């Protein structure tokens, strides 16, 4: 090897140093100051705080669920873009192109499997994230708006999953979307019963806008594809940005006592200044500290915070990696399903929606309008209103708020489970209105069904808890626990206990052979 001219080497080194300096504008992140700068001056890192509270880094505080959800979104974006290169969104080609991806495209099978698994996991992670946030009352002021953004992200996640469901154009896809589209059209159940569909048909309009047609076909495929690959991911990405940004602007993660942050924005409702008004600041501070008429948090002891670089970033990278590995392992072990080519003449029997909609499918099997539209709409509305009704900020950051909260959650757990089981058992064993009064008015059949009654019972129980405890937090815990329990039990019934013709079976072994 030839000796490198030392002057050339020195020059190269100096150019390299200059290049790195021009990109990062600070030295190696070895001191607390340069570590803070590393986060602060980097576009991709600056959504992070420069320092992180130690409590935030405890695994039990968040269970990492938000980061897991975001990691899954990254996995889905990467695998999704790769799948787009081979997927052809037309009725004639879609099914075959998915088969090609599965059997012919190099590594296509693992990409498709990982995409499918990450999608299921993301729905689960987003739900669990919501459960975590709710039970630690992290929705309380000043984080109400971020709770709403999170709720929108949940709805968007479900919409992304639903639109992706149609794309393989197999029997599973076709009939799940046929059912879903008819649920969008189910207001006509009500307008039909009132006899006004001819003049006023919101259901028909919704269905036609969703499908671009009267039935699931090529137009629906293109619409779902467009929503799935561009519209919904863009909106979701934008809202993820807002969601992350607001975590910081709302004072970091919810902590017991609402510890003030470096920006002087405590979680305390009255907006108490971070340093007590009597004392004059003794430390110097930057302009960025003075926001919204608050005093700078110069006297805040930084002992309970650590530099985000490396502690927070390391935790995030580990969660990212673990999530990737889990998706890859699932994708290697289990193939994404692909049934026969869609056949508009023969429905799947049973035709089941994806698992997270099976709880709804259970109540849809009493009334499409109530089960498919009213109950979900009321649920989302109720979840959105919770932080605006429960204005209490005590217990923020503590699971179940207090010992009392734990007690009421457990009582509700038992009661809600019994109610949900009754709501399934009664129609299965002794039938429902139409079995007793075959000529019952359709309006009564729509309004009075196990789904709507269960929802009313849950709301009633929450009001009762409010009267008993005189605490809106306890009532909120009760209502949310009802929602969780109802969701879990009905989903289980839909997944495991319903067979052909949506009949009840204790085990899949009892399904009639056909």
């Amino acid at each position: 090897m030839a000796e490198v001219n030392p002057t050339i080497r020195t020059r190269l080194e100096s150019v390299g140093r200059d290049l790195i300096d021009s990109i990062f504008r600070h030295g190696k992140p070895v001191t607390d100051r340069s570590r803070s700068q590393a986060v602060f001056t980097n576009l991709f890192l600056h959504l992070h705080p420069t320092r992180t509270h130690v409590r935030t880094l405890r695994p039990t505080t968040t269970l990492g669920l938000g980061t897991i959800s975001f990691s899954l979104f990254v996995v889905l974006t990467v695998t999704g873009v790769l799948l787009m290169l081979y997927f052809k969104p037309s009725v004639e080609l879609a099914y075959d192109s998915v088969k090609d991806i599965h059997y012919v495209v190099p590594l296509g099978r693992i990409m498709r499997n990982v995409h499918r698994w990450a999608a299921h996991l993301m729905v689960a992670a987003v739900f669990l994230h919501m459960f975590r946030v709710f039970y630690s009352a992290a929705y309380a002021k000043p984080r109400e708006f971020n709770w709403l953004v999170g709720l929108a992200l949940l709805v968007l996640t479900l919409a992304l999953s639903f639109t992706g469901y149609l794309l393989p154009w197999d029997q599973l896809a076709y009939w799940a979307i046929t059912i879903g589209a008819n649920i969008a059209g189910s207001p006509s159940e009500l307008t039909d019963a009132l006899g006004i569909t001819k003049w006023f048909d919101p259901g028909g309009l919704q269905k036609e806008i969703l499908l671009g047609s009267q039935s699931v076909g090529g137009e629906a495929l293109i619409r779902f594809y467009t929503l799935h690959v561009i519209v919904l991911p863009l909106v979701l990405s934008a809202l993820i940005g807002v969601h992350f940004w607001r975590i910081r602007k709302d004072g970091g993660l919810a902590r017991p006592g609402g510890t003030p942050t470096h920006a002087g924005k405590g979680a305390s409702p009255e907006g108490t200044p971070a340093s007590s008004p009597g004392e004059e600041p003794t430390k110097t501070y930057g302009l960025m500290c003075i926001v919204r008429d608050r005093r700078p948090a110069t006297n805040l002891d930084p002992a309970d915070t650590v530099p985000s670089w490396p502690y927070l970033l390391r935790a995030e990278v580990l969660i990212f990696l673990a999530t990737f590995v889990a998706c890859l392992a699932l994708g290697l072990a289990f193939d994404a399903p692909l049934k026969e080519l869609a056949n508009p003449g023969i429905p799947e029997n049973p035709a089941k929606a994806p698992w997270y909609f099976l709880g709804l499918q259970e109540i849809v099997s009493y009334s499409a309008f109530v089960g498919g539209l009213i109950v979900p709409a009321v649920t989302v509305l109720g979840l959105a209103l919770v932080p605006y009704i429960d204005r209490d900020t005590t217990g923020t950051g503590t699971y179940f708020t207090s010992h009392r909260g734990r007690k009421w959650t457990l009582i509700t757990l038992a009661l809600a489970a019994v109610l949900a089981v009754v709501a399934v058992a009664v129609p299965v064993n002794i039938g429902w209105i139409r079995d007793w009064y075959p000529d019952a008015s359709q309006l009564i059949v729509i309004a009075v069904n196990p789904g709507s009654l269960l929802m009313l019972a849950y709301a009633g129980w929450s009001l009762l808890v409010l009267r008993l405890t005189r605490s809106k937090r306890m009532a909120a815990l009760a209502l949310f626990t009802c929602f969780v329990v109802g969701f879990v039990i009905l989903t289980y019934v839909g997944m495991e206990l319903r067979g052909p013709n949506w009949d009840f079976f204790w085990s899949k072994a009892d399904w009639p052979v056909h």
Partner: protein
Amino acid sequence: MPKRLEPEPLPRRDFLSLAGLTLTGLAGIGATMGGIRLLKPYVLPERSNRFTIGLPGEFPVGTERILPERNVVVRSTPAGVAVVSLVCTHLGCIVASTDEGFDCPCHGSRFTGEGDVVKGPAPRPLRWLEVWLAPDGKLVVDGGSEVSPGTFFGV
């Protein structure tokens, strides 16, 4: 020239911003309505709802035949011919013929042979469709035109 002695009822800048906001709002409403209009198709892409099912002679009295291509059942009685849709009125699955009538595989709706709901969530009876005789002598069914259940068309 306007007289400057009288105070202006609405300051010029307020008026302009109000006008600007109003116009922006109107444009927004127009764009939204246009967007929705664009999404609702003028021409439905499906094949026509109207279809011929054959000569009346192909359906002698007593016939009950399912046409899987069209998801209808054709029934011929002394009173005439009737065509009933096999699309479940609940959520659009295709009902299967059984000894007692029709069963929907998706959410357990059951119908009598006449299409009346006996069980399950279906809000309405199965749809009976309009049938007539075309000039060429063939039976035509209009899938978009519903008649009251029990209507038979004499042919």
